[in-house]
């Protein structure tokens, strides 16, 4: 450890080595939880969004119902139901499922994934529906099949329209993950709560964690700006 850092840590009672390590553990948990749920959520959301745009009510209906339920209830309630509800199922402790759902991490991951997938589905659906009909007609005129049209024309075009709305969803998800601490998971907020309850210093404990969340948010914003630049390259003037 550099000397100036060691000196800084010695000057206060709260931000000592163990405290910093607790925040670090929380940061790792938050990042794991948020990124895994976002990646899984996106993987689920793309096929669901395509199903959601189908005209067949048997395909479109169940997806509509799923997004309606998960967008219509608070994430906290979903987390409570999945975390405490699963443990109440008779005999689940004897099955292999319990190895997964005993720890708080997987119920939280499941709740977050289902929640973000519902929102992302609707974002992508909106972007698909807004595809200019000229693009689709042109693709049809070239003789492209439905699958090829989806892959080459509709989805890339929808990605360009959806990326801004999706970047908001990612940032909301990062902030919503703060509720993971209510089911005993020591994420960033959980670490801050532990430290607050140890030192009774709400400002120090929570402002520090707020700064960490802000740093994460700025990194996400930066990454999405790069992604938008890449996706929307063709719209920029030639010499810029």
């Amino acid at each position: 450890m550099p000397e100036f850092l060691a000196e800084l840590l010695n000057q206060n009672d709260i931000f000592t080595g163990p405290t910093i390590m607790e925040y670090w553990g929380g940061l790792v948990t938050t990042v794991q939880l948020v990124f895994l749920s976002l990646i899984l959520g996106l993987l689920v959301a793309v096929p669901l969004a395509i199903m959601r745009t189908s005209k067949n009510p048997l395909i479109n209906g169940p997806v509509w119902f799923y997004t309606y339920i998960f967008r219509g209830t608070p994430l906290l309630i979903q987390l409570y139901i999945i975390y405490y509800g699963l443990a109440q199922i008779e005999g689940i402790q004897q099955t292999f499922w319990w190895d997964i759902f005993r720890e708080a991490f997987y119920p939280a991951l499941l709740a977050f994934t289902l929640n973000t997938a519902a929102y992302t589905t609707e974002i992508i659906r909106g972007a698909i529906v807004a595809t200019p009909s000229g693009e689709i007609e042109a693709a049809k005129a070239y003789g492209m099949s439905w699958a090829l049209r989806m892959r080459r024309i509709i989805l890339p075009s929808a990605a360009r329209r959806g990326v801004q709305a999706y970047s908001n969803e990612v940032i909301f998800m990062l902030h919503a993950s703060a509720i993971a601490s209510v089911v005993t998971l020591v994420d960033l907020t959980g670490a801050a709560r532990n430290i607050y309850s140890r030192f009774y210093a709400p400002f120090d404990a929570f402002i520090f964690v707020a700064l960490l969340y802000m740093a994460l948010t700025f990194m996400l914003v930066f990454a999405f700006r790069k992604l938008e630049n890449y996706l929307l390259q063709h719209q920029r003037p030639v010499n810029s």
Partner: protein
Amino acid sequence: MRKLIVAASVALTMMAGVAHAQERNLRIAFDVPYEPFEYKDENGELTGFEVELAEAMCEEMNANCEFVIQAWDGMIPGLLARKFDLIMSSMSITPERAERVLFSEPYYNTPGGWFGPESFNTDVTDMAAMEGMTVGVQRGTTMDTFVTEEMGGVVTIKRYTTADDMVLDLEGQRLDVVFVDYPVGEQTVLSKDGFKEVGEPVKLGQGVGVAMRKRDEELAQEVNEALATLKEDGTYNTIMDKYFAYDIKM
């Protein structure tokens, strides 16, 4: 006419001032549910050992008391932000807390108790046997401090905001054992089938006191006097016998 109204309202205000001159207004905060200390009965009324003690104390102090419900996490900040004037919510006296708030003399002390399922046969003081177990505690309590300091590297500690959530996880077999304020464990864990006390109760800390803002020294003196009277004239014992089969007086 206008003068008459002004005069009348001035007179009314003054009368109100006189009426309140002896009775001071106090707001007391509780975190519910924390049976049997403070909880809501079937009718939704706030009751419990500390609530009744607070009522008796207010009467003794001739104060007009209002009860406020506040979650544990925001107790001390709420007090400092003047959202209420007293905390009577089983707040144990610790040096860290005493730096932020002013405590009265302790008014009760209960040990921490170990509770677990019927099948639990491990000696909780045997660190080798406890290795790898998952222990539930309430975040920021003296029980939390005890387990963190004594068993920190040995067991996995799960911290909960409310006792209810913790008991739910004990029932769901996410926790092997919980270490909780004895009367709370008695009410919440032992009242369910298949659970028992699994170790000797551990005496912790300096007891529970009324917490006030540092500058309210006069109020603290009044509270101490009122509590001392209640302890002597038998009111305290009457309330205690209603909720406990054993002595928690301090």
